[in-house]
Every structure is written in structure tokens, then in C-alpha cells.
């Protein structure tokens, strides 16, 4: 970890931007994590049981602890908060430390999204100015553009949802594209056999529940699925468009222009304004500012703007800051309403 002095300087920088310091619990209920990210997150968390058999875990990151605080205290108004402390994660990579020292800051519950995005990036830049480095990059992406593009493509709705859901998992996403090209998800012989069964089941009581799903629900999805009209050639074309989109990479001031050329060329009815991006300068401090269409894939919970800052210090490339917008995180954790949230975290272990 960097010296105490440095982390204090960083905390002062964040505070000077009008953020309020909060303390967060180190131990949270594991159920929250599984609820948010599904079972796979168990691989990363250190969990244990309390005397009543409730599963608890060490916080795997501070963002989730902070969102839980917002939710559990039933907060409704806008909050600008920051915090520092350790997060704990298992890793298969021996080089990774189990304990991660982080400083994080967030704006939660505010509807002024574009300005909040800018403020978080500016705060990140201000805290960065405490570090010594020779050069670096600020990479900006936006998951929203990808999702809008998918909505405009000529593929069944099931496929749109599927592609949006798995954007963040690159390997599996590429598998999906391959499947989209070959149209192999509906087996015609099985469909014929099941059609008979479908007709028979139509006569059953539609409200009967089979393992958590009603007959009505099952039959509806079956009928939607076999009606999916899709030709292989079309799937191939869509896959080509997506791949081309993901290759877009340019200085930030060219982002809107490049995207609009791409949309026009592929006859997609979308236009992006340069003001959509939080920054339009290609150079800030010692950082080159870039746009990348594929960036934002690392974490499932980002829903809009995402950014990261990598710096070069003592000839090493270091990822120091990661951040973005996660408007669905608090509702995934159990809030009935969607609460806008944007934030970033500084990694102090390097």
C-alpha cells in the first residue's frame, strides 16, 4: 500500500469537491451478494456463518457496502459520499492481493446524470493529481450506446435481451455471436415432437404451477420461441455489425463523429451528440483521453458511462482508477425504485 500520507492527500482532494465521509461495515450478509450477482460471486467472497446460521461475508468491494447503506437507511435524497478502507476478495491469480485498499466516492439518488458523470470524472482527476506519473490514459465507454444499438438490430427480442445481458462477459458473448450466425438454438425435430405436447397442454389448467412456472408461462414462451423467424444470412449480418461496432476506438473528440458514420453506414437509426460524452478534450493533465466502444465489459453492474485511468509510473502500467454509472445496483439489492448512482474507486495497492 502507498504511504498513509498519500492516502490522506487523496482523501483531502475528494473532500474538497464537496463529498461527505462515511463509515461502512466490513461484514455484510452474503445473501446480498448472491442476490445481486448470482451464485458465481461466491467464488470471490470470504464467507462464514453467524450463531444463527446466517451467512455473512467480508465486503468484496466498497460500492456494494455503500449501496446497502443507502438502501437500509431508507435514504431518498441526493448524497455525495466518500469512504476508504479494505475490500476482501479471493483470487486464483497469485499476484493479486486478497486485501485491496480502496478510496471510493459516489453520487447516489441524483437525477442530474450528465453533470454527475462529469463531477465523478473530475474528482477522479483531482485525486490523481496527488500521484507521480509520467503519462497515462483515460478511457471512456458507455454501455448504453451498445444497448441502444442492439435494440435497433433486426433480430428476435430474445436475442436482443440475451446479447445485452452478456455484453460484460466477452468470451461467452463471442460464443453467442457464433450461435447467432449459425442459427442453432431451435432444433426443428424436437419442436415437431413438442408441438403435439403443446397442443395437449393447452387443454390443461393454465394456472397449474410446475416448479415455479405456470403452464401458461411455459406455453407462451414455447410458442414465442418457435415463431422466431430468422434466416442465417441475417444473423451473420447482425453479428458483423456488432463486431464492427466493438472495434470503434478513437480520441474522445472524434467519438460522436465516428459513431455517426458507423450508424449511417449500417443504416441504423441512431445519432449521438458529442455532448453525450462527459469530456471532449483529448488531453487532460498528462492523460490521453480515448473512447472505446467495447469498454465497460469488466463488470456486470455498469449501466451507462464507464471509465478507467491507467498510468505509467516507473515504467510500469498501473490501473489506478475505475468508475462508472450503475443505476440498477440498488434496485437489484432490493429497492423497489430504481436509484441513479455513479461512482469511482482508487486502487491503492501497487
Amino acid at each position, binding site marked *: 500500500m502507498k504511504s498513509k500520507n498519500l492516502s490522506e492527500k487523496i482523501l483531502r482532494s475528494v473532500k474538497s469537491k464537496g463529498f461527505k465521509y462515511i463509515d461502512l461495515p466490513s461484514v455484510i450478509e452474503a445473501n446480498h451478494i*448472491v*442476490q445481486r*450477482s*448470482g*451464485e*458465481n460471486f*461466491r*467464488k470471490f467472497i470470504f464467507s462464514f456463518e453467524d450463531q444463527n446460521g446466517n451467512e455473512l461475508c467480508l465486503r468484496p468491494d466498497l460500492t456494494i457496502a455503500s449501496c446497502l447503506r443507502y438502501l437500509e437507511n431508507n435514504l431518498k435524497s441526493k448524497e455525495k459520499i466518500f469512504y476508504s478502507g479494505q475490500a476482501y476478495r479471493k483470487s486464483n491469480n497469485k499476484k493479486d492481493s486478497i486485501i485491496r485498499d480502496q478510496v471510493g466516492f459516489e453520487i447516489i439518488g441524483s437525477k442530474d446524470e450528465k453533470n454527475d458523470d462529469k463531477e465523478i470524472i473530475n474528482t477522479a482527476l483531482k485525486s490523481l493529481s496527488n500521484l507521480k506519473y509520467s503519462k497515462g490514459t483515460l478511457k471512456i465507454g458507455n454501455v448504453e450506446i451498445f444497448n441502444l444499438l442492439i435494440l435497433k438490430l433486426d433480430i428476435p427480442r*430474445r436475442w436482443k*435481451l*440475451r446479447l445485452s*445481458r*452478456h455484453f460484460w*462477459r466477452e468470451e*461467452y458473448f463471442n*460464443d*453467442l455471436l457464433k*450461435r447467432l450466425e449459425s442459427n442453432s*438454438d431451435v*432444433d426443428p425435430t*424436437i419442436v415437431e415432437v*413438442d408441438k403435439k*405436447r*403443446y397442443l395437449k*397442454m393447452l387443454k390443461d389448467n393454465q394456472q397449474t404451477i*410446475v*416448479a*415455479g*412456472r405456470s*403452464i401458461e408461462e*411455459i*406455453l407462451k*414462451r*414455447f410458442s414465442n*420461441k418457435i415463431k422466431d423467424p430468422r434466416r442465417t444470412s441475417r444473423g451473420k449480418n447482425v453479428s458483423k455489425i456488432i463486431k464492427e461496432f466493438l472495434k470503434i476506438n478513437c480520441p474522445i473528440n472524434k467519438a460522436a463523429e465516428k459513431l455517426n458514420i458507423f450508424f449511417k453506414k449500417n443504416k441504423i437509426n441512431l445519432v449521438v451528440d458529442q455532448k453525450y460524452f462527459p469530456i471532449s478534450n483529448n488531453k487532460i493533465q498528462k492523460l490521453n483521453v480515448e473512447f472505446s466502444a467495447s469498454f465497460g465489459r469488466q463488470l*456486470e453492474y455498469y449501466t451507462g458511462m464507464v471509465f478507467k485511468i491507467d498510468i505509467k509510473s516507473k515504467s510500469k502500467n498501473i490501473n489506478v482508477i475505475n468508475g462508472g454509472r450503475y443505476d440498477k445496483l440498488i434496485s437489484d439489492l432490493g429497492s423497489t425504485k430504481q436509484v441513479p448512482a455513479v461512482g469511482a474507486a482508487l486502487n491503492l495497492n501497487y
Partner: protein
Amino acid sequence: MIKNLINIGIPSKGRLRKDILKIFKKNKLHLVSERGERDLLGSIKNLPNVKILYLHAREIVERLGDGSVDLGFSGYDLLKESEVNIQNKINVVKKYGFGRATLVVAIPDPWIDVQTVADLEEIAFEFKDKKKKRLRVATKYPNLTREFLFSKGVTQFKLVSSLGATEAYPFTGSSEIITDITSTGETIRANNLRVLKDGEILKSEACMMTSRLALKNNAFKRIVKLFSK
């Protein structure tokens, strides 16, 4: 010297035990138990440095991992389900053709809209988004199940650990789907379940395994060789 004692683990019950005992017979190794059939300790006639331990097949893997059993017979599925730290300490010396079974994902047969794991992935998200619940998967193999489902894109689910009769879970409200080990698929079908088209997680069979912590002296090598016929 007591350190020269070699511990051999044999499954204490079931089909696997019967088949393993046949191997001993075939190799002309005569098992002796002082207190009869139910004795959980035994020896091999004319091999004073060998102790036989009759253990649960899952426990044989654990004991190989901590070195208290040097040589053991168990299922490949149980080895693969164990923690990485344990797997790293075990060598598979021989795979036998018997005890073959497959770990599979099975769903309620009336779910006619679900044929593949990709369908299941959609259903899992429907449970999350519309029902605000997680799709529950009952299993005796949480580690293998989690890895498999995740690699196939199913991320939104919750594991329910089961100790037996897993096939009944979807119909008693304890889970929606299951993963289980099966050799013929009969029990799965008989319980109104169906294996997904691409729902094969792992093929298993009976194996002879050795602990990497075992002293690899000549006496040990001789013992391993005794089973090679």
C-alpha cells in the same frame, strides 16, 4: 516402523464397494477383517504393512488430500467436486471401466420450452426480473454445478444443497431444477424430469487414486503394482 504402514481406502457401501472388492479378488489379494463384515478396519493377508479403511466414497477423497489415506478407490466425480487444494494433492493412477455415471442438469419435463442450457439462461433471468427470485438448483455437487452453469452463461441462480432424493426437489417446492449423477437416466425420467440436450456436466467412473503426500518408497510402489492386473 509405523511410518511404513500404508493406508488403503475402500468405499464402505454400495455398488462401488462391491466392484472394488472384485479388483482385490482378481489380483489375489485376500481381505481380512477381525470382527467380520461390518468391521471398518481390515488388512490384506500376508501384507502386514497395509491397513484397510472402509470409508464413505467422498471421505476417501478428503483423506487422500490430507495424506491419512495413501491409496484409495473412489469416483472421478467426487474427486472433481472436491476443493482445488485437495485435488492438487491427488493423482489418478487408473480409471476402471465400471461405476460409469454422468452428472447432468435436469429440468421438469413439462417445461417444453426449455431444451438447452441457453434456454435455461433465459429462464434464470425471467426468475430474477419478473419473479424477483433466483432460480434454485438442487445438487449434491455444488462446485461442479456452479462452474458448469456459469461457463454456459447461466449466472443468476441459487444453489440448494441436497443430501439425497434430489430428483424430488422440483416438485416439493425446494428447488426448480436439479443436477444429479445418473447412469441410465431412469430415476430422472421416473421423477418427471428431463436432461437438457447439452446438459452433461461430467462423465465419471471408478478410479484408483494416490495421495501426493504418500511416501513414494519401494514398498508403496510394490503395493500400487499389486492392483495392476
